[in-house]
């Protein structure tokens, strides 16, 4: 049985801009929103869009992602035929090696794709937080008869030069593609979500692989080659929340965005659930001494201190007299008595000792990142900003 559309999720980015958060884990596995990892968003989008076959391309040793993804049951992707597969670079009889670029990663998994003989391939990246119905984009792609469809979003003009930008005609046909141009002529940014006709993509991947000068990248090589050949490329306009969380600041901001009274990204939408691996924690406990406001708190937390405008993952414990403000506290962090934390991201398992002071409350200050697992932050570290 063929699959109409198979998704390939590029999860290989080392995410160095996320600093020590990605030292031990690939960027798509970084925590977000009190409960999730970044990869939960594209995977949930797939299952909600009716796409049940997803290859996750990782450059790293596959164990960590394998362990998180398991058989895919968290995202309803534990399918008999299809489902989710982690695809690290593996040894082949003709030799192995690292994926040299995003296009090369797909090229080297042509056999995987051929198994399903799909009509279309959806290429996703693992760096963005958004809810999107890929099924609607696929309908658009099919209706327009495009060879490739690129999902685009309007970005503020002043930020446009950070993105790959599309120039389109009145019908949405892409006429030009500029990768991070200094002087943008469009503010339609590529979201890193592509749908290709598989027969067309396969041909270009094979040609690209034969081109020794190519960097084997979708944005730099494949899309320009398609445009050069006057292939039909359509821009699919997406409206809604979409955020690149590739830096510490943007990761912090995207978390804070959830705390608005009516956040653009609604996590409580029963018709578009964001699925995630379940850590089996009991209900959260808010003590008599606690004061919680404007915050998201996950199961397994026990709060005895003050939490304001913050996001707490599962298993966090804050003691009496502590203050957590404008911060993101990742799983199983223990925060001691009278400790104060401002504008910080505290990574998994950190123990903050009684009375420690972390972060800078001033609104212009940089976000403090405490990112060494198991760190015990004693008083002596109190004014230091650790990156």
């Amino acid at each position, binding site marked *: 049985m063929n699959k109409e559309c198979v998704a390939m999720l590029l999860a290989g980015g080392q995410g160095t801009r996320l600093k020590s958060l990605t030292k031990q884990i690939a960027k798509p596995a970084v925590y977000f929103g009190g*409960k999730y990892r970044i990869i939960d968003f594209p995977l949930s989008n797939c299952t909600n869009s009716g796409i049940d076959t997803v290859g996750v391309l990782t450059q790293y040793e596959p164990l960590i992602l394998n362990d998180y993804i398991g058989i895919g049951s968290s995202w309803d992707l534990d399918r008999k035929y299809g489902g989710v597969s982690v695809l690290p670079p593996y040894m082949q009889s003709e030799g192995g090696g690292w994926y040299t670029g995003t296009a090369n990663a797909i090229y080297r998994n042509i056999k995987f794709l051929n198994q399903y003989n799909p009509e279309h391939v959806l290429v996703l990246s693992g760096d963005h937080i958004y809810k999107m119905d890929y099924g609607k984009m696929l309908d658009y792609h099919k209706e327009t008869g495009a060879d490739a469809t690129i999902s685009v979003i309007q970005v503020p003009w002043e930020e446009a030069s950070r993105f790959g930008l599309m120039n389109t005609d009145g019908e949405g046909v892409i006429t030009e593609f500029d990768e991070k141009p200094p002087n943008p002529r469009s503010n339609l940014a590529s979201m890193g979500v592509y749908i290709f006709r598989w027969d067309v993509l396969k041909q270009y991947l094979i040609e690209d692989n034969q081109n020794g000068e190519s960097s084997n990248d979708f944005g730099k090589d494949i899309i320009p080659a398609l445009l050069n050949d006057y292939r039909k490329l359509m821009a699919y306009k997406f409206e809604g929340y979409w955020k690149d969380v590739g830096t510490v600041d943007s990761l912090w901001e995207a978390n804070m965005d959830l705390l608005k009274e009516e956040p653009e990204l609604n*996590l409580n939408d029963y018709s578009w659930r964001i699925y995630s691996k379940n850590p089996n924690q009991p209900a959260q406990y808010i003590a*008599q001494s606690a004061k919680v406001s404007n915050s998201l708190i996950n199961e397994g937390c026990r709060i005895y201190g003050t939490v304001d405008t913050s996001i707490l993952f599962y298993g966090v414990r804050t003691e009496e007299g502590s203050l957590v403000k404008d911060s993101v506290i990742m799983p199983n962090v223990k925060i001691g008595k009278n400790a104060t934390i401002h504008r910080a991201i505290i990574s998994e398992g950190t123990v903050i000792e009684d009375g420690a002071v972390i972060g800078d409350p001033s609104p212009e200050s940089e976000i403090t990142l405490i990112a060494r697992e198991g760190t015990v932050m004693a008083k002596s570290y109190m004014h230091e900003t650790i990156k």
Partner: protein
Amino acid sequence: MDRIAGIINLDHEQDVLDELTYFRCSAAVPFAGRYRMIDFAISNMANSRIDSVAVFARRKYRSLMDHLEQGKYWDLDRKRGGLFILPPDWNDPTDISKGDLQHFHNNIDFITRTLADYVVVTGTQNICNINYENVLREHKESGADVTVVYKKVEELYPEFRRSHKLDIDENQRVTAIHNDQHNNNVYMDMYIIEKNYLYGLIEDCIAHGCSHFFLDGIKGRLPDINIHAYEYSGGHALINSVESYYRHSFNLLDESEHDRLFKEESPILTKVKNEAPSKYLESSEVKNSLVANGCVIGGDVEDSILFRGVKVEKGAVIRNSVIMQRCEIDSNAVLENVILDKDCRISNGRTLVGAPEKPFVLAKRNTM
């Protein structure tokens, strides 16, 4: 490697939780913010590496089916063994079994086909966190025919009136099972027994027209059979009335009580709902409460338990109450000593106040 199979026998569990058991059996009653009563029994089995579990269901078990599915949340959706919900199937006119022996008889295949050598039989009203591998070890060492589990309780609360109590000799052998209101060895409605011995007892009970396996087949045979008593010393709550439900709910607000039931090494598992973390708005004031995920809280909540997906608007006040899944409490509503079942809605400005010793209970899907 000794293998144990599990039977969760709901046949003797009366649906005595008033409004909470109008539409469901007591095993399916929500408890502790995100669980159902039966989660404890099943999780204990899963944590004891029991991979074959039968649930003898008779009445109002549909919400149990919804909740348990094929046991996937307990990793019990297996080809070999796994979780079986076994509702009545009494279509055989030649069947002479009665009472819970109908279940044992009709599902005798479960017992004969399992690869396990031992069977644990339990109800769901004794909430606890027990490892049956330890019970089995003691059972084998004792050489007994049956090992029953009991809790030495400190105070004889009213809910224990209906429980059986055990007289135990110095070797932990049971000498009598009775209802003496002054004995604090409370039988927890669970026992372990060798499979073949169980099979023989069932056959014998049916032949003698018995209708209650434990009373007739085990208790009734004292002192001819050797019954060992295993003392369970962990967290325990017997829930067989609205009052005991209500009291034990609040006991969980005490951290040490809570931690005796919820342990990292033997987690209580339940159906995954994929709710977002709970949101505490600027205006919220939450004190001494257990809150499950998916809640959005704008009002005051004190000494209460909120299940998944509860909405509390700004200005609403909740005290000493248990609010179940997806209830919505509009602004300026006041709830005190109340249990709201699922999907209730309390409109703007309504006040409901029950008594601390007798909460006001609202059945599910009510709007007031």
